[in-house]
């Protein structure tokens, strides 16, 4: 250092700075999100005049509604956007959704006659406007403020008001009332009644209850008719003749994945984690599977805590991809490169990265495996290939009962409904010959079918034992649909769990078995494109699954002296394997530091587990004894096997809640005297309820009272102090 002269250092530093600039030049461009603004929208936004003049902007963009939102936390903004969407869907009217802070109100008196202004106004604190509405409120209420032409006269201006407030506060919804009063005073005409939503309880219901009447009054006042909107597109789909191949998204979930640039991994940039272990957990996987998968996160920067969830990003099964491509008549050009633009980015964003291809959208980006919604069938009906098909799909769209019976109970996906309505055999392998093509514009598909979401699993390991590995315990979902006169019973497969099952077969080089024993023709375990876009999820014999971690509040108390009661039958045991491992890691450290008696003052860790048979589906059966021995008697497990003896005296099955009752003395002691924590994981509907009931009974009796009073109060108190935590699903 001393030998380096100042000027050398300067030049060195300059060189470093320039090098940094050069180095980051590439990633700067790569990291910038692919911004798609359609040329149409762009030209609309480029008004030459005053950018704070909303009327000029409305005129330039051909918008007939301006929707202002006074929003502090974003809720009012959400409702403003919803109103804009509904105006478009119902009447084909487009809106300018405006932050009032960004506009001036002098021109409020020049809103054209065929236009209207909406105010979606939240009331804050002690009856105050939100920060972004302060100016607006002043202009409306201050008699000294004059509009551009008419002074204080707004006669003829048509408006709608919806207020958001909170009944637990005084001055409920006063801001929307002030807006209403001021406008009325100046001669403006309100359409419909003023809506008021209570953010404390019933915002959604309040809104739903209000909006129909409002839209009716709106239609009359504006002279518009419902049904004019249905075909207004949200997106414009263009086929590209040429595009650099490396810039086309083929299932990559982020820009970084496409450009292979480094960045933190989260829900926006999932990490393709290599599967290091994938094995069957059931001792006897006759017709049920439960997969244990270990995902290696080394070097990814991903960290997790016990009790967190891992999101796994599946693709759709190939059979369904083909089916929908064929039903849409897109099979022959499935690999055509397409770009999609939002026609109104404020209302609808393109939900996945583009440019891409037709097949990629169906395989990776939208949830074509989900039940076909009733509403989308109405959209599809307009593009039926023949009158019979049109009549068939219209019936499913308009008749709720028929829809429920045929589509919902029959578990039909969008592709299957199209086939069924056109009279195709939905049980045959779909081909061009046996599948009728519906000329549904692809933008309608993008608008109608939701984005394919990650599937979340409770992580079944502890980072203290497995710092670089996330374990997943996943029972494979497969069930039979209810048969009806048009669709006989079929196997229905869960997307995420069968994706994992596919990965497990591939990772171990196993052959996926045919399901023939059930007598259903052509029914096989669905196959997935598990090698990923451009083979990114396969490296030699290692397969990868895109993942991210979602934080949870399902955590052990830090202090091991607190007793812990865990209730997790079936795969509900997953997070508790992580919990127990967490305590094992702590036990090892404590014993190393403080000797063999280090766990003497630890609280009892009790696990209530349930399965069908100890020889069939007992998860991690061989692991529990070793955990118990490391925890020196502080870990106790009670297992209810519902389909093997012992049964109850009346012959009925024994479940976890029965075992909890049997252990009532120690349970009550852990909770009441030990100030312990209770955790429940698994089925929300039956199990979790039954467990809460038995807890109330135990605690009520222990306190010398009843389940209904003392017991219920105790359970409520436990919940309010987060000493009873649930991780449940329905």
């Amino acid at each position, binding site marked *: 250092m001393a030998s380096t002269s100042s000027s050398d*250092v300067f030049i*060195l*530093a300059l060189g470093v700075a320039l090098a940094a600039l050069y180095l980051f030049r590439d990633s700067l461009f790569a990291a910038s999100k692919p911004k798609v603004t359609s040329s149409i929208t762009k030209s609309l936004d480029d008004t030459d005049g005053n950018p704070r003049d909303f009327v000029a902007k409305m005129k330039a963009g051909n918008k007939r509604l301006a929707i202002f939102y006074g929003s502090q936390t974003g809720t009012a903004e959400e409702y403003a956007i919803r109103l804009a969407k509904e105006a478009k869907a119902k009447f084909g009217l487009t809106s300018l959704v405006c932050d009032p802070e960004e506009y001036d109100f002098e021109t409020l008196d020049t809103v054209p006659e065929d236009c209207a202004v909406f105010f979606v106004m939240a009331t804050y604190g002690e009856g105050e406007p939100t920060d972004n509405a302060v100016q607006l409120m002043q202009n409306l209420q201050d008699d000294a403020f004059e509009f551009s032409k008419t002074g204080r006269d707004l006669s003829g201006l048509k408006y709608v008001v919806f207020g958001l407030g909170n009944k637990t506060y005084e001055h409920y919804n006063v801001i929307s009332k002030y807006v209403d009063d001021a406008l009325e005073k100046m001669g403006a005409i309100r359409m419909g009644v003023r809506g008021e939503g209570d953010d*404390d309880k019933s915002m959604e219901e309040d809104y739903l209850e209000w909006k129909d009447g409002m839209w009716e009054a709106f239609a009359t006042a504006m002279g518009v008719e419902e049904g004019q909107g249905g075909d207004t597109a949200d997106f414009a789909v263009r086929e590209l003749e040429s595009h650099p191949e490396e810039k086309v998204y083929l299932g990559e979930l982020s820009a970084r994945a496409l450009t292979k640039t480094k960045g933190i991994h989260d829900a926006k940039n999932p990490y393709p984690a290599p599967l290091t272990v994938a094995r069957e957990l059931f001792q006897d996987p006759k017709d049920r599977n439960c997969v244990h998968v270990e995902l290696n996160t080394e070097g990814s*920067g991903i960290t997790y805590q016990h009790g967190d969830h891992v999101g796994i990003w599946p693709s759709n099964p190939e059979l369904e991809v083909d089916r929908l491509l064929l039903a849409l008549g897109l099979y022959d050009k499935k690999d055509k490169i397409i770009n999609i633009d939002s026609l109104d980015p404020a209302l609808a964003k393109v939900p996945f990265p583009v440019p891409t291809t037709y097949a990629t959208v169906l395989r990776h980006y939208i949830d074509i495996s989900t039940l076909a919604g009733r509403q989308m069938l109405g959209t599809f009906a307009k593009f039926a290939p023949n009158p019979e098909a049109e009549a068939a799909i219209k019936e499913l769209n308009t008749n709720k009962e028929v829809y429920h019976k045929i589509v919902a109970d029959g578990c039909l996906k969008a592709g299957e409904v199209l086939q069924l309505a056109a009279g195709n055999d939905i049980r045959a392998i779909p081909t061009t010959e046996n599948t009728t093509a519906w000329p549904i514009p692809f933008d309608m598909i993008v608008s109608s079918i939701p984005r394919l979401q990650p599937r979340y699993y409770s992580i079944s390991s502890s980072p203290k034992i497995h710092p670089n590995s996330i374990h997943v315990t996943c029972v494979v979902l497969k069930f039979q649909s209810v048969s009806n006169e048009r669709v006989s019973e079929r196997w229905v497969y869960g997307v995420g769990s069968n994706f994992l099952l596919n990965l497990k077969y591939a990772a171990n080089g196993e052959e996926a078995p045919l399901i023939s024993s059930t007598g259903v023709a052509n029914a096989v375990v669905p196959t997935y494109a598990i090698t990923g876009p451009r083979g990114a999820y396969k490296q030699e014999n290692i397969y990868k699954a895109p993942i991210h971690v979602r934080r949870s509040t399902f955590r052990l108390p830090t202090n091991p002296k607190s007793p812990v009661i865990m209730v997790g039958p079936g795969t509900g045991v997953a997070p508790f394997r992580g919990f127990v491992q967490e305590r094992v890691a702590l036990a090892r450290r404590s014993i190393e530091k403080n000797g063999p008696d280090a766990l003497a003052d630890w609280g009892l860790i009790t696990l209530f587990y349930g399965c069908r048979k100890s020889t069939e589906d007992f998860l991690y059966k061989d692991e529990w004894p070793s955990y118990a021995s490391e925890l020196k008697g502080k870990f106790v497990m009670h297992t209810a096997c519902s389909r093997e003896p012992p049964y109850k005296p009346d012959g009925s099955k024994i479940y976890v809640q029965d075992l909890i009752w049997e252990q009532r003395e120690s349970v009550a002691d852990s909770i009441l005297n030990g100030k312990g924590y209770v955790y429940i994981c698994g089925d929300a509907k039956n199990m979790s309820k039954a467990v809460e009931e038995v807890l109330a009974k135990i605690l009520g009796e222990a306190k010398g009272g009843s389940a209904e009073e003392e017991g219920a109060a105790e359970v409520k108190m436990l919940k309010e102090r987060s000493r009873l935590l649930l991780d449940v699903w329905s």
Partner: protein
Amino acid sequence: MSSSTLDFNLPLSDILRQSTKDAHDDIAFSPSAAKLSNGELSKAAYTHFLMMLFDIYSALEEGLERHASHPVLEPIINTALLRRAPSLSSDIAQLLEVPELTWKSHPLYQSLVSSPPKALSTYVERIHAISNSGDPTPLVAHAYVRYLGDLSGGQTIRHSLAKAYDLDEAAGEGLSFYAFKELSSSKPASLGEMKRIKDWFRNGMNEGAGDNVTVKVAIVQEARDVFRYNGDLFGAILEHPELERAQKDLPVVPKAQYGSGFAVSSVLTVITAVSVAHFLLVVGGYSGPRGFAKLVAAEQWFTSFWSSTVQ
């Protein structure tokens, strides 16, 4: 309000409300609070502030957990709901765009560790002192001031912060500090539910303190101090002119890396070089949220390059 006019027979939450109203308003309407709530702090300064909060909550929550079964504290213990340190950690990582495991080695935090502002060390040391004393009851005051603030004013600034720092509000990224779960479920709490949480907390304080005037006096006295600690902490935000918005988000040069032993001229040279680099980076278009990450990365790289070259 002086304590002589306070009626210590009232429930603790009422006394606290009366006795801290002025202190609360002083902070709520301070210039620093305005800067924070309007999103006028640079992203680096805001991150720096969250880092200070992280140290405070870590100390507080460690203390609360240690004394969770103390009869005065027990009724306000709800770790899964209240605990803020993990969400602060996640938000800081998100703002710095680094993995959560590594933000503590970031120069911005390292400088905080090596030379913490007086306001921060006083605050943290006070919490440790209470936790390690025989009587942890004043921790109630610390929990009261912070958590109820987060459940009230914190909610009103969430939206403007999201806009200022280009955070995805719907996804809640970088904003988990402002998100709470419901009292009786793991669903996210709405504003109405937050009011119920505050009521629950006040009831818990009243239950814990009961009629014990000694306990009430100790907590009320501590609460005034806690407001002062927080006021000073806000003041500390403005102590770093280099963290102001005008500086285009260039993070502070960590002092530790350029400690004594270097001639002043060398240090000046380094500063000049950094300024030149800063100028080039800004001119090169490295501003805005993406640019922030680039700058942090560039700066880190520059720092490591520097230290490895000059050894």
